[in-house]
């Protein structure tokens, strides 16, 4: 009797397990083929010296990673990505939050503003890059600048501010970071606006009854309620900004020595210009590991803040 019961039990458990596996099998196989396998393959390639064409690859162990640790240009490019990220985290997100707060109120043409603020993110990065290249162009014709910004500066009598924005190492990266923030703030704006609209209006009314002014309401009601959304926006900003490269290619091309290099442009150069596929894969693996570390750190911070 007990044996029969065990058999029945095992059969139903097995059936349940099979059912579960059957449901997740398509997703797991697709994920494995397109994500897990390429990841391990790239890691394998990073242990080889390979020119990308030859059927022969020579195994060199961790040599690519050791060289990468010593590669000053790689670490400079990493710093450039961090600089762009820093500007995006502050300027871009503050702008997004400010505009989201403004659009959350009862103002005229609210819907129009929402559409306008969401326009830059839907434009192609190449198009944005070329438009801003035209705005920041330092060229002159008949002694007058024809780039929009320099022309405006000249007409405003601010000739001393006219410069070669994209070919000057002191200004190029900041210009790229600002354009990147301009292009990206719409995502944060939409998410933060959605977050603001989920805050219970009764909380604001209660604060008002307690005599809180606008700043106190913002500090003690809006910000604490928005922390989970702000953290998500920050994680997405970091991941998006660290991987920026299309904008750089369309704004400064391969120019400006290494002054506008970021990790992804280094990976691209190692693959296409110097034909070091193994080294490029080592860069990719290292960069991926750094991004995963950043994402997990944010997740930990987010969990701690939720507990507080």
């Amino acid at each position, binding site marked *: 009797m007990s044996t029969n019961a065990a058999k029945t039990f095992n059969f139903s458990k097995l*059936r349940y397990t*099979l*059912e579960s596996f*059957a*449901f997740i*099998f*398509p997703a797991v*196989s*697709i994920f494995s*083929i397109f994500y897990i396998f390429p990841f391990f393959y790239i890691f394998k390639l990073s242990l080889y*010296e390979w*020119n*990308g*064409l*030859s*059927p022969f690859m*020579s195994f060199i162990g961790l040599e690519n990673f050791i060289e990468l640790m010593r590669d000053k240009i790689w670490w400079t490019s990493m710093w450039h990505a961090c600089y762009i990220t820093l500007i995006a985290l502050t300027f871009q997100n503050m702008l997004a939050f400010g505009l989201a707060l403004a659009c959350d109120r009862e103002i005229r043409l609210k819907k129009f503003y929402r559409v306008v603020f969401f326009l830059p993110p839907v434009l192609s990065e190449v198009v944005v890059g070329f438009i801003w*290249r035209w705005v920041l*162009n*330092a*060229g*002159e*014709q*008949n*002694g007058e600048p*024809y780039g929009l910004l320099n022309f405006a500066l000249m007409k405003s009598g601010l000739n001393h501010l006219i410069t*070669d924005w*994209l*070919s*000057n*190492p002191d200004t*190029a990266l900041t210009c790229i970071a600002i354009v990147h923030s301009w292009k990206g703030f719409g995502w944060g704006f939409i998410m933060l606006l959605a977050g603001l609209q989920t805050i219970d209006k009764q909380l604001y009314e209660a604060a008002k009854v307690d005599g809180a002014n606008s700043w106190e309401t913002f500090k003690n009601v809006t910000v604490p309620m928005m922390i989970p959304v702000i953290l998500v926006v920050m994680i997405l900003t970091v991941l998006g900004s660290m991987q920026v490269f299309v904008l750089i290619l369309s*704004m*400064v*091309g*391969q*120019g*400006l*020595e*290494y*002054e506008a290099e970021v990790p992804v442009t280094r990976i691209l*150069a190692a*693959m*296409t*210009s*110097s*034909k*070091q596929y193994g080294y490029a894969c080592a860069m990719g693996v290292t960069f991926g590991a750094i991004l995963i570390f950043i994402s997990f750190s944010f997740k930990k911070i987010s969990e701690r803040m939720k507990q507080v």
Partner: protein
Amino acid sequence: MKKIISFCLVLTSFMVSFGFVSCSRPKKDPNTITLWHWMTDRDKTFKELAAQYKELTGIDVQIELFAPSDSYTQKVVASAQAKILPDIYGVLDTKETFANFIKYGYIADLTQEFKKNDGEWEKELFTKALDANRFEPGNGYDVPPGIYGVPLDVTNIQMLYNKKLLKKAGYDAPPETYDEFLEMAKALKRIGVPGLVSGWGELWLADCFASNYAFNIMGEEKVMATYRGEVPYTDKDWVRVFQIFKDLVDGDVLVKGVVTKPNKEAEQDFALERAAFAFNGSWSVNVYKEINPDLEYGVILPPAISNKYPMRIWGGAGSNFVISNTSPNKEKAIAFVRWLTSQKQQAYLAEQTRNLPSNKKALSSISKVLEEFAQSMDNTTHPTIWPVNESPVVTEKYTKGLQSIIIGKKSPEEVAKEIQEVKEKEMEKEQRRK
């Protein structure tokens, strides 16, 4: 429940088999050949010629454009790795990569085709253009000697000058020496006209300009000796080459933003008379014509610094096509490129696209400016015909070094030292590999 499990399993098997089917090669139609190219300006003409060819032979040539050239190069390399190359394509890369494509069996040897009928096809084409596709016995790439590609047009990169602007600055003729050029640039600056524009945001074009002067200052043998590692980049002749870029910056000769300028933008600048000189290739004739049909300009060799060695410019084959070695329609693909490089088709291409034809007999149909370009074909050289090429890692450092001089970050001496350090490191690596 059984139904659900069966459905999931069927779905999975379907997806897996669909994946395999998509990955497998489609069956080739014997009357269809595929050509991949990167030349946006020539796409329409290629398609017109393909239509003519279909009418003539019944063979359907599918012309597929992948631009810009950087993306095209990546696509070709990725397709070679996946073994899905088309019947006809081009390798837009260094001679070493071209050699690798041949060595690993991606490109067909066309020597026999060129030698047929007492070398009729070979004789029709410019030797310089064919040289880019030729591997001599004992070449340093371990490629069996032969001809592996077909030049579609010839090209060279020279200095162009705006006649009207030069006249405005008080000059009736273009500069003959480098010092004259610098003087002229100063005079132009005085009347508010910037001197030289070029797309040096693209590394290869700055490399090309420096290479012209390297040949002029130290001669081909010393340049090659440097690539072989026998002469250091810190040699005074190389420092002189780098110094040219500093001269151009110090003399305010360059258009602002030249270091991040793509060549398309540089072409626009010259066409719209925003610069008196341009360093650009013969393909630009078509671009200038489209932007400013009234532009009056001429072509000169870059003004020489030294009389010791001749000024050598990059040129030869402009665009080359190769035939996939694994193509089931190899013969038909060869027949099509043979037809494409014959006199009538070459003349049509030259008229439509304003490029120099690779077929000598078609030269009669070119414009006056193109004729000026054609006159310097004997001065051309190109990395694809050099016996030895610099390592891509060193080349990257070298071109980035030129940019650092232009932005005023480093001196020519510092750049020379840095390039030499990378060169030595690469040579050490090469030794270890051996």
